[in-house]
């Protein structure tokens, strides 16, 4: 059932290299109008006056929507977060939309939006930084295993330090956009979203429409990284404009407005203490984390997910808190909490190993996790030790000298080798899939899922092509569309594990149905040929697949477009993916630039379904780690609020010249419990720990321990 999969090209690569793939703003509709948001220019307060006259004077502008054009927020619905606010007169953050200008052309919409300069009643005070007065601290439930206080007391070697990760923005290259078409009482939304279901639910409730009236289509996403996981504020604005005007409306948000309206990774802080016993094994962790949060935000400070799953440390006490200030809501950004927590913890582990005088790989290998200490379950699979061992072998780790600052090149460049581990929760959702094989040579598979670069179509194709005698070139994979299958949010690295088992089940059922149809007759050729021979135009199966521990209730939640997740702590086991990163850094002697010429990353994601796209996923994760460690931070001037460096020139993401060699390997052993194929998640564990490996490598190169990201030139001068 679960032999290794072959290395096949990416399923939708051809349409992507031809520029034919359709992203959110690429859909052609007749009679299109263009919209532009007017952003608030204060951090907090109220609109005092908003005149649309100047905008209406602009030739081509046909309407300006303001707060009075919208229905009040819908009544609360059980189990669903409220949809994003529409246009309101209260301003909660800088850049919040205060009006939407709709025009015949994009140029006119922009000119019209620029002509609107509302006056505001500015709030007497606002809080833009967690270090400022006005911040409200709100602790959440702590996470405990064993007795960390007692164990820490008997530890003979301890390390304690603080680590910090800054605010960051996802910045997928595709901008946020919405195209809304209102026709015959039907609303169709074209929008790149990781959650067409969520977007549908939100716009439906905001507009008081029925499920039958709303379709959301998101066939290709130009990068998600979590930014498109929730409903966006602009969707209902554009939908409303289309409904009011009876013509299709498109809005593409300028990058600066995206910085201010999309979610972001909040600043987060970590105070970590680790204790080791006389044998040099870690026995206790005390870990206090907190994070920046908006006044109403719900992004949970789950900083104690991954760390307890790395090394089987039995005594753990973790606290966490939200620090509420005036900002837009933070949210999930690639490896949301595991990235910063593994950066912090894996830096601390490195510091402890150094204190003990032990090689950091050997030190980690002393600790093999077999159980989840928080929930008391066994780990369904954990090959972190194998990742570390294989990574060390490929990297040539045995040639590393233990002493920091001991490896230099002839020109004085300091060389550092660092290692760190990462773990990421393994979750899944149900999937209602339809598989139809046609006599004309085509096949169509419809399911819940969204393609945002991770290659979900490739994983589906792998399974279908292996299990079914079909023509792979004529296989259509319909996902991200609420009209083809009930959709679920695709995030949290649960996409593959939530669709490939359903695809496998559908394929098996289809083969069985074919056998039944043929009733023992021997018919030559592939399934298409066989159908043609027996004069059947098509054969279709539908599968309602649920994940471990799930049942009809979860299917019902999926049908309603809700979150129907299970994991990583299942009823009898816990599932995480793992990775080990090995990083070489070079630090210039003079101007202290840090380069990363070489990375080796070995991942345990269970069975690798699509080797080629999986490798790309890990390389991308490593580049995100490099970006986070060395480049990316969104800056706030507390006098003004909002974000100062709100473009791609000043929010510094890695470019091609920043990236050297990235060697990727997989353990590729199926998880025995998580699903029939043994596939765990990959997209986020790929990033997790990488920043820690860079911090550790910089320390090894220079002897300087950097604990607050990003590490910039000034930190090493």
């Amino acid at each position, binding site marked *: 059932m679960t032999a290794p999969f072959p290395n096949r090209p990416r399923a939708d690569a051809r*349409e*992507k290299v*031809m520029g034919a793939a359709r992203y959110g703003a690429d859909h052609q509709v007749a009679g*299109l109008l263009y919209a532009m948001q007017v952003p608030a220019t204060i951090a907090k307060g109220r609109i005092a006056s908003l005149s649309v006259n100047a905008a209406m004077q602009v030739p081509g502008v046909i309407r300006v929507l303001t707060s009075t054009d919208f229905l009040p927020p819908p009544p609360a619905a059980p189990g669903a977060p409220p949809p994003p606010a529409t246009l309101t007169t209260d301003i909660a953050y800088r850049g919040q939309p205060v009006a939407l200008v709709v025009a015949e052309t994009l140029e006119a919409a922009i000119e019209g939006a620029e002509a609107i300069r509302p006056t505001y009643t500015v709030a007497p005070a606002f809080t833009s930084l967690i270090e400022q007065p006005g911040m409200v601290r709100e602790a959440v439930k702590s996470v405990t295993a064993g007795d960390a206080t007692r164990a820490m007391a008997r530890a003979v070697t301890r390390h304690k330090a603080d680590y910090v990760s800054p605010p960051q923005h996802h910045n997928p*290259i595709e901008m946020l956009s919405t195209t809304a078409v209102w026709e015959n009482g039907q609303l169709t939304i074209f929008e790149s979203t990781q959650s067409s279901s969520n977007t549908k639910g939100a716009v439906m409730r905001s507009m008081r429409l029925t499920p039958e009236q709303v379709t959301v289509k998101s066939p290709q996403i130009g990068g998600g990284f979590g930014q498109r996981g929730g409903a966006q504020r602009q969707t209902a604005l554009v939908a409303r404009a289309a409904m*009011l005007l009876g013509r299709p409306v498109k809005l593409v948000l300028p990058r600066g407005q995206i910085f201010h309206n999309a979610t972001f990774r909040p600043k987060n802080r970590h105070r970590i203490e680790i204790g080791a016993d006389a044998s040099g094994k870690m026995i206790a962790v005390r870990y206090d984390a907190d994070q920046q949060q908006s006044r109403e935000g719900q992004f949970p400070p789950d900083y104690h997910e991954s760390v307890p799953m790395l090394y089987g440390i039995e005594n753990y006490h973790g606290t966490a808190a939200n620090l509420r200030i005036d900002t837009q809501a933070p949210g999930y950004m690639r490896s949301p909490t595991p990235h910063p927590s593994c950066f912090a913890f894996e830096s601390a582990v490195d510091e402890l190993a150094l204190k003990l005088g032990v090689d950091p790989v050997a030190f980690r290998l002393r600790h093999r996790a077999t159980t989840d200490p928080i929930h008391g379950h066994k780990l369904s699979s954990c090959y972190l030790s194998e990742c570390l061992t294989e990574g060390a072998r490929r990297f040539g780790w045995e040639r590393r000298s233990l002493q920091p600052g001991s490896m230099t090149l002839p020109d004085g460049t300091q060389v550092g080798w660092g290692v760190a581990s990462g773990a990421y929760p393994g979750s899944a959702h149900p999937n209602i899939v339809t598989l139809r094989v046609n006599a004309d040579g085509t096949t169509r598979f419809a399911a819940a899922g969204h393609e945002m670069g991770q290659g979900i179509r490739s994983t589906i194709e792998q399974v279908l092509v292996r299990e079914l005698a079909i023509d792979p070139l004529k296989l259509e994979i319909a996902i991200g569309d609420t009209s083809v299958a009930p959709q679920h949010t695709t995030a949290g690295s649960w996409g593959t594990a939530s669709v490939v088992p359903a695809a496998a089940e559908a394929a098996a059922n289809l083969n069985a149905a074919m056998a039944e149809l043929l009733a023992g007759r021997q018919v030559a050729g592939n399934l298409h040929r066989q159908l043609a021979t027996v004069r059947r135009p098509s054969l279709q199966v539908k599968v309602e697949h649920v994940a471990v521990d799930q049942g009809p209730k979860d299917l019902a939640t999926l049908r309603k477009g809700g979150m129907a997740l299970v994991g990583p702590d299942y009823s009898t086991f816990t599932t995480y993916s793992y990775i080990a990163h090995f990083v070489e850094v070079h630090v210039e002697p003079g101007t202290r630039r840090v380069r990363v010429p070489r990375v080796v990353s070995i991942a345990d994601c269970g069975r690798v379904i699509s080797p080629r796209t999986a490798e790309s996923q890990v390389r991308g994760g490593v*580049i995100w780690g490099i970006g986070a460690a060395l480049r990316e931070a969104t800056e706030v001037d507390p006098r003004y609020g909002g974000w100062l460096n709100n473009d791609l*020139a000043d929010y510094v993401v890695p470019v091609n010249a920043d*990236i050297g060699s990235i060697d990727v390997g997989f353990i590729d052993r199926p998880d025995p419990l998580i699903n029939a194929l043994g596939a765990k998640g990959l997209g986020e564990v790929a990033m997790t720990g990488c920043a820690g490996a860079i911090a550790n490598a910089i320390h090894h190169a220079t002897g300087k321990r950097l604990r607050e990201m990003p590490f910039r030139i000034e930190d090493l001068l």
Partner: protein
Amino acid sequence: MPDMEHLLGVPLTRRTALGGTAALTASGLISESDPAVAAPLRKPVGTRLAIRTTVNGKAVPVEIDVRTSLLDLLREQLHLTGAKKGCDHGQCGACTVHVDGQRVASCLTLAAKVDGRAVTTIEGLADGETLHPMQQAFIDHDALQCGYCTPGQIMAAVACVREGNATSKDRIREYMSGNICRCGAYVGIVAAIEQVAGRGKA
């Protein structure tokens, strides 16, 4: 408007009643003098300019608003959506096209400037169903993930080889740094360009 009331499930106010009506003014709900609703468009928008350009080998006479960028002309008027908007300020490279054979950022190119010049976009790169070698190399090396920056990457890559800037890994990296790939496909992109440069054609 009984149907609308049923649809919305809320009592109608003047504003909320407007939803979904195709002919607003005809419905009598909005007067022409309503400051928030303009009369239907009767005159062209902005300063108009007639230009004659060639796009992917075809002569394209087109009238533009003089403010229009080449990117918006391609995407919104000519419906060539291969070139992408990622920043609109020359900071990402997703909008890269060729003008007279040279790669440019179409978002910072006034459309007026391509009057009399030849534009090539990703849609004009393949020879019918036969991919350009660079497109094939991008597939071979999985030099893409989400694919959004890919048209710009490929147009830049073709130019990079043509310019003679694909002579080493480091040089490719430098000369491809104007195209940001947030998914992080840089390793594959460099390998794809090396493959094509090694063959000596692009």
